[in-house]
């Protein structure tokens, strides 16, 4: 009979930049069950609605996460704009779309680097992060900040990107695309990488729905859902296909994210071609009154914003359901029956952001 034991995993572990703990119930080397513990760094940011007015909350939401900072601010602003019936200038929609796709590039490259690091392929880790650095440089050129750049405001954006700057970004991305092809082909074709990812951490389409998975986690299980297709910001004007895979394993999740890297570059190119001239924000008067559910597609998947306002400058409630929070049950599913050595990689394949989860 197999020996049953409980192995603690985390909260500190080489593959975890942020703390999460799992109690792994093992039979020899096989995981039977995983029980998660989160909450090591819970910040209670949502409760700041009692102290910060609805405009100041933009800066709070941007600090939920350092990777999708821009998109958190955008999601919150979009929800408040919807409540207040504010029509954002079209140029601001395009600018938001461009920064969103740059954030997706930044996030997916960061994840590829972490994945490579987790299976000990240091050169691949460095290549991925070297490419990511170019995106951070573009953030710095366009906003002045590399991580949190606070360009969202209710009613539009605070900074514009002139035509020359946009053209230079497209040129950088064109060059980067070639390097990206070389780097990502290693992830997709190299035997040592495939052997760690292929056929590992299967989550079927039915399980993905049952466990509430979102984003690349869901799309790698053959579910064609990408919130960008709902047409928020400038996405309704742009042509792109939802990238899916029906392989349902860790390699499929990697393939979907890699596909989205090239797709983001294509979307930025289209947005730069189509961006109209004009204002970048409209003045917003008064206080919001009402409620709104807002969804948008972050790099890690669907983020869900709920804003409830009462006509004063302080909101009744602001809630963010982050993609990682939604993907934890699906991650636990992938761990059941997994080998102990695969656990770090399986945790990484949901692209966990504990900072988001502990908002």
């Amino acid at each position, binding site marked *: 009979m197999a020996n049953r034991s409980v192995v603690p995993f985390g909260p500190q572990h080489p593959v975890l930049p942020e703390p999460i703990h799992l109690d792994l119930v093992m039979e020899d080397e096989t995981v039977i069950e995983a029980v998660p513990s989160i909450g090591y760094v819970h910040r209670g940011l949502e409760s700041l609605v009692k102290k910060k007015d609805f405009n100041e909350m933009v800066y709070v939401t941007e600090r939920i996460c350092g990777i999708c900072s821009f998109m958190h601010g955008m999601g919150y602003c979009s929800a408040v704009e919807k409540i207040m019936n504010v029509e954002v200038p079209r140029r601001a929609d395009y600018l938001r779309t461009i920064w969103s796709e740059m954030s997706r590039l930044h996030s997916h490259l960061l994840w590829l680097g972490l994945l490579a690091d987790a299976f000990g392929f240091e050169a691949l880790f460095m290549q991925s992060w070297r490419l990511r650095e170019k995106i951070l440089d573009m953030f710095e050129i366009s906003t002045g900040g590399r991580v949190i750049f606070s360009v969202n405001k209710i009613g539009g954006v605070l900074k514009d990107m002139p035509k020359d700057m946009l053209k230079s970004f497209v040129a950088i991305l064109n060059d980067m695309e070639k390097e990206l092809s070389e780097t990502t082909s290693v992830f997709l074709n190299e035997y040592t990488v495939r052997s760690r990812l292929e056929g590992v951490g299967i989550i079927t389409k039915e399980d993905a729905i049952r466990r509430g998975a979102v984003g690349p986690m869901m799309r790698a299980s053959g579910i064609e859902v990408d919130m960008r297709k709902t047409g928020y910001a400038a996405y309704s004007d742009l042509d792109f296909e939802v990238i899916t895979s029906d392989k349902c394993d860790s390699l499929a999740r990697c393939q979907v994210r890699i596909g989205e890297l090239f797709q983001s570059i294509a979307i930025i190119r289209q947005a730069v071609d189509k961006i109209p001239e004009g204002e970048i924000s409209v003045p917003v008067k008064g206080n919001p009154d009402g409620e*709104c559910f807002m969804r948008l597609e972050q790099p890690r998947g669907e983020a869900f914003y709920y804003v409830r306002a009462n006509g004063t400058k302080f909101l009744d409630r602001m809630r963010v359901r982050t993609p990682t929070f939604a993907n934890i049950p699906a991650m636990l599913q992938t761990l059941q029956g997994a080998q102990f050595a695969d656990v770090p990689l399986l945790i990484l394949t949901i692209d966990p952001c504990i900072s988001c989860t502990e908002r």
Partner: protein
Amino acid sequence: MEDIGNNVIKIEQVELLPVIMEKKNDDWRLAQICCAFRDGHYEVSYSFAKGYELTNYRLIVGKDETVASISRVYKSAILYENEMRELFGLGVEHIKVDYHDKLYRIDAETPFMEKEGE
């Protein structure tokens, strides 16, 4: 059931589990559960997604009342239900994995509820 606008359908406690079962059997995904405290009662919003469709159900729960867990139907509800009990003090009965207010390692009790004198 009552459509109260903004894509929200208000339901009664007795309607909760039948609604949840219907959504589950029709392959809807639990997108989120959100708790808010307003005018002396809890508002619990259950959001379900299928493709790009989204439906929200709203349950009004008195301050001293409890709500049934849906975690035996939707396993992903475990984190949401533990969270709203811990942050708001909303009683949720029979959660499949009950963290007993230890989901978040915080000292404050029900920190999202306004305390008397605040």
